[in-house]
């Protein structure tokens, strides 16, 4: 356990410490000690100012992709997962097989074919090229499905139907409330996935003005390579630190639900 903690926390500590150093101090001091000056705020200022404030734009792009992409993915996964769990219709098994198969396919493998398809539609190099593929989360769907099958007793739905509620109303008023832990879990999951999405935007977007933070920071990092290199490690580190803060906050806020969501169905009651 202690080893595990060390393994997970050391990189984070390293990142925090090094984000407080100037570029020359990065080159002249060891990784786990503070530099001679505390330059964190200066670095943050520079990060937001570099390249005409492009970092701010990347942050905005990432938020857009996460809110629309992960938000949409959660809504779709919730509706579809519930439908598959609680309604009997022909072809349900087929859908089940397809979804399970889709969970197994790494998204990276689909990036290039998706690019070619989107190119035909004229969508490449637009935010939609990143958002549309993010809307589909087979894993999220599967999770809600399993969760809904356990969390929503059929008797509850039947009682609602006898009271004269329509299917949509049942979903919105009865089901959603029951599914909250599962929904939060999927939200968190798709959010992390979209926030850290790298390969898809890298392939889809050619203009820096649409980059999310991941691709943008990598481009900054690549500046340190080769002829005419302009290393800005201090800004890359500070930018990375700023990039993970919102994720950490989201995790801390939603942790309670996350845990109860994970243990759902693990114990027979």
């Amino acid at each position, binding site marked *: 356990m202690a080893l595990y903690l060390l393994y997970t926390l050391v990189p984070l500590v390293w990142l925090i410490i090094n984000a407080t150093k100037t570029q020359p101090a990065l*080159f*002249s001091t060891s990784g786990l000690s503070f530099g001679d000056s505390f330059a964190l705020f200066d670095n943050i200022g520079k990060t937001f100012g570099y390249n005409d404030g492009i970092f701010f734009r990347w942050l905005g792009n990432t938020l857009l992709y996460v809110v629309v992409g992960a938000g949409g993915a959660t809504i779709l996964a919730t509706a579809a997962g519930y439908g598959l769990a609680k309604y009997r219709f022909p072809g349900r098994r087929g859908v089940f097989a397809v979804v399970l198969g889709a969970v197994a396919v790494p998204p990276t493998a689909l990036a290039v074919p998706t690019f070619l398809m989107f190119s035909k539609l004229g969508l490449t190099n637009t935010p939609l090229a990143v958002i549309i593929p993010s809307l589909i989360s087979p894993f999220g769907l599967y999770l809600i499905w399993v969760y809904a099958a356990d969390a929503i007793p059929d008797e509850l739905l039947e009682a609602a139907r006898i009271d004269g509620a329509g299917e949509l109303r049942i979903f919105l008023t009865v089901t959603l409330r029951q599914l909250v832990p599962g929904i939060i879990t999927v939200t968190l999951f798709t959010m992390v996935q979209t926030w850290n999405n790298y390969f898809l935007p890298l392939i889809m977007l*050619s203009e820096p003005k649409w980059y999310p933070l991941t691709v943008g920071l990598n481009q900054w990092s690549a500046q*340190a*390579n080769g002829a005419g290199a302009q290393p800005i490690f201090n800004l890359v580190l500070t930018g990375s630190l700023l990039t993970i803060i919102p994720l950490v906050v989201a995790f801390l806020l939603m942790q309670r639900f996350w845990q109860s969501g994970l243990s759902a169905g693990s114990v027979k009651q």
Partner: protein
Amino acid sequence: MSRIRNHARAAAALVLAAALAVGCSSGGGSSSAPAAATGSQDSVDAALKAGGEITYWSWTPSAKDQVAAFQKEYPNVKVNYVNAGTNKDEYTKLQNAIKAGSGAPDVAQIEYYALPQFALTDSLVDLNSYGFGSFEKDYSASTWAQVKNGNGVYGLPQDSGPMALFYNKEVFGKYGIAVPKTWAEYVDAAKKLHTADPTKYITADTGDAGFTLSMIWQAGGHPFSVDGRNVKINFGDEGTKKWTSVWNQLVEGKLLSPIAGWSDDWFRALGDGTIATLPTGAWMPGNFISSVPGGSGKWAVAPMPTYDGQKAVTAENGGSAQSVVKQSKNPALAAAFVRWLNHGGGVQPFIKSGGFPSTTADLSSPAFVDEALPYFGGQKVNQVLTQASKDVAPGWIYLPFQTYANSIYSDTVGKAYLANTGLDAGLAGWQQALVDYGNQQGFTVSAG
């Protein structure tokens, strides 16, 4: 920023004057017969007059200033400058856009090693169709050779990287090491230094495909031969063996620093003497000056060590050209921009940013050659570097799938570096993987 722009404008004026002067003095033309498909520059001039809009992909630091200077000179042309990523990121996007049939830029920066694969897939415009073949005499032989593919000219060279040996004078002096003239002396120096101070290494090399190929090139190796779609790969040839027999001693003797190139550690190690030499391209001084302040006054440049200590010989490492992409809706205008970039007003801003040019006029101009650089203790480093550009071994070619080749280098040769074992087995593994891949891709590839 306005200062830079003024610089660029002044520089542009200078270059224009210089270009005119060169144009006047070189009436003879080159003796080599240009390819059959020669057009003239009239259509390019006309396109420039007519104006229009083009997109330019590049990641060089000087691109922004160059585009600004170009727009000033030709207000009727709009250049959308996009940094689409550094080297392989850009190539991936370019490859995808070409495959998709849309979304590619009009002009792209492409490194010499990646040019053949784009040229071979017919993705680039042969600039002979605009009469650019006549520019041959204006570029160093080693760079011109790299933009040519068969008879076609698929870009104009911008930066080049004839290799030289950068070494830390202070460290050499402290341990009584003489500047090595031969690779054998280099290995001795490596042993002497590391024995005297185990924290110091002669150089850092964790395995880099570009460096490996350049070193084989310098040793006289020709591991690749390409004839249309027929490819031969042989990492068992004499030149390759020459290089591995030297480098194996460093790898197996753990005489190479394990610091990865271009990391923050690496820049630090260059500054504090941990890494004592760097056999690398002529574009390195700019990087020293901007990113290794700690090494100021300590570094110097010498010609590359050779195998026999007799005749100076070196290779190119890095460097890139600007090419017109076939997908361009306005190739003549794109060609005009390329011509301006690398055969006109774009050259000076590039040199100002610390780049090493490919144009013979600049490689021989006294202002450039005899410049004493304070960082290098006042040494006129360009004297060594421009001489190196004349000493590049001829006849080198890259694979028509070099970017893929470089991407799998660490899975094969890279392992030898980690295990401190000889490189030959790794090279054989690389060769096998490349033969298999090439054949899958529709080439006819044979080993040996």
